[in-house]
């Protein structure tokens, strides 16, 4: 397990990173960098974060126990070296991609992850708004295969920590774009703004932790379009700053759906595990239907523009008045 030096370094890194939040706010107030904070939103974030740390501390042993158990039954002896760390870092990032994608595409896991997306702001503090229930949602099992393969748990823990620390700086509007090569290879604020947006075209995109290659490879990459600024938050936003409601609201919504009378077992299971927005009677909209509706609206708008354009093509002298009216 990590020695005290490692623990101290991680704690210092966390403290340094936390101090970037007041720094971002200070720079927003003095140098007018783009960073919008709101008192109640940030206070709610801090309280949600405190709860998240508490539950990590109390239930984190589930993660540790799973990894240690798998390592005790490992398939190979992989030495803990710099090259094995690089390999486990890349593999752990792949693990993160699928953890993240499943967290968005299945409601049970979304109920845990939704907390992170519940703010309608996008600044460094949003990174602290983390789930209270990630330890028992079941996705910590995704950490097990690396230990089973034979990577040392300390290496896995380090890769996990570095991955999370990397993701801190991408929660900002202050940085517009990184150099092109950087944007192509790595996760950036621009890519992550898309991920946090509720514009239909941006939904369920850019799941990467560090390497954008996974989104390109698995077809979930969407570039930020300057013509369509991201709107942050949920498809159905909250109107509360209460940290308990923020942390638990989707579980309550699931419970209400599960006890609806007259549903089949299949329908109840779908309310639990189908993508967010699924409903037995089609009364709700998920990502696909929201995108389709948005695409249809765009098409109608384009057709309207085209019809105006074609009407103006054979424009004769004196027909400008008709066009203006149209």
């Amino acid at each position, binding site marked *: 397990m990590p020695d005290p030096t490692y623990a101290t370094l991680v704690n210092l890194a*966390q403290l340094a990173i936390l101090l970037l939040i007041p720094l971002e706010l200070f720079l927003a107030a003095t140098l007018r960098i783009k960073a*919008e904070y709101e008192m109640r939103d940030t206070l709610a974030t*801090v309280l949600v974060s*405190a709860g998240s740390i508490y539950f990590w501390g109390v239930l984190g042993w589930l993660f540790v126990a799973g990894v240690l158990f798998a390592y005790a039954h490992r398939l190979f002896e992989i030495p803990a070296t710099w090259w094995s760390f690089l390999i486990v870092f890349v593999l752990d990032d792949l693990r993160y991609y699928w953890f993240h994608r499943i967290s968005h595409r299945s409601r049970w896991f979304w109920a845990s992850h939704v907390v992170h997306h519940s703010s309608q702001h996008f600044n460094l503090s949003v990174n602290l708004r983390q789930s209270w229930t990630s330890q028992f949602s079941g996705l910590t099992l995704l950490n097990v295969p690396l230990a089973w393969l034979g990577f040392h748990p300390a290496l896995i823990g380090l890769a996990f920590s570095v991955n999370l620390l990397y993701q801190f700086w991408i929660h900002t509007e202050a940085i517009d774009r990184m150099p092109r090569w950087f944007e192509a290879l790595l996760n950036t604020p621009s890519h992550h703004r898309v991920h946090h947006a509720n514009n239909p075209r941006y939904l369920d995109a850019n799941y990467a932790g560090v390497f954008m290659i996974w989104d390109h490879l698995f077809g979930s990459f969407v570039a930020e379009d300057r013509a369509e600024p991201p709107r942050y938050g949920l498809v159905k936003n*909250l109107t509360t700053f209460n940290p308990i409601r923020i942390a638990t609201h989707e579980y309550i919504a699931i419970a209400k759906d599960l006890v609806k009378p007259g549903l089949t077992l299949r329908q109840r299971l779908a309310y639990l595990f189908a993508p967010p927005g699924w409903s037995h009677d089609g009364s709700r909209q998920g990502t696909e239907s929201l995108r389709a509706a948005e695409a249809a609206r765009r098409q109608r708008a384009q057709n309207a523009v085209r019809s105006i354009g074609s009407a103006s093509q054979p424009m004769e002298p004196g027909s400008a008045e008709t066009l203006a009216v149209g």
Partner: protein
Amino acid sequence: MRDLLIAIGVNLLVGAVTALLIYFSSQRRQAGLADPGEALNLFRAQFPDSVPRNITLTSDGRNALIDLSDGSAVGLLQGYGRRWNARVLHDGDVASVQANEATLRLKLTDYGSPRAALLLTDPNERSQWLARLQSLVRGPETSPSHA
């Protein structure tokens, strides 16, 4: 446990420093609606296919009630700090509505958006909206009112 408490303490300390900076910076203002047109644009940003018939801004400019063309549902635009949330209230979405002097106080059945306070100083508007919102309360939960 000690490490856990330290981590939570550091977290809360940074939160307190950030809150102080927000307090002393210019980022404290709340959003306010200038006119019905602005409310309509904000509502339609979230419900682009809706067809509003009539819009009432609350007297504090923090909310708008929208009469939708389908007749049964009511659009509600709520100020949420510096942001706006739009929703469509259907039958059963309102748990109770009470008129408290010039304010209509709504309890909603949505756990993630549990209440709204609508300041309507015009008594005619207030009584009209009270009746309309009460019609969305399901069953015997309707609260007595004194608009």
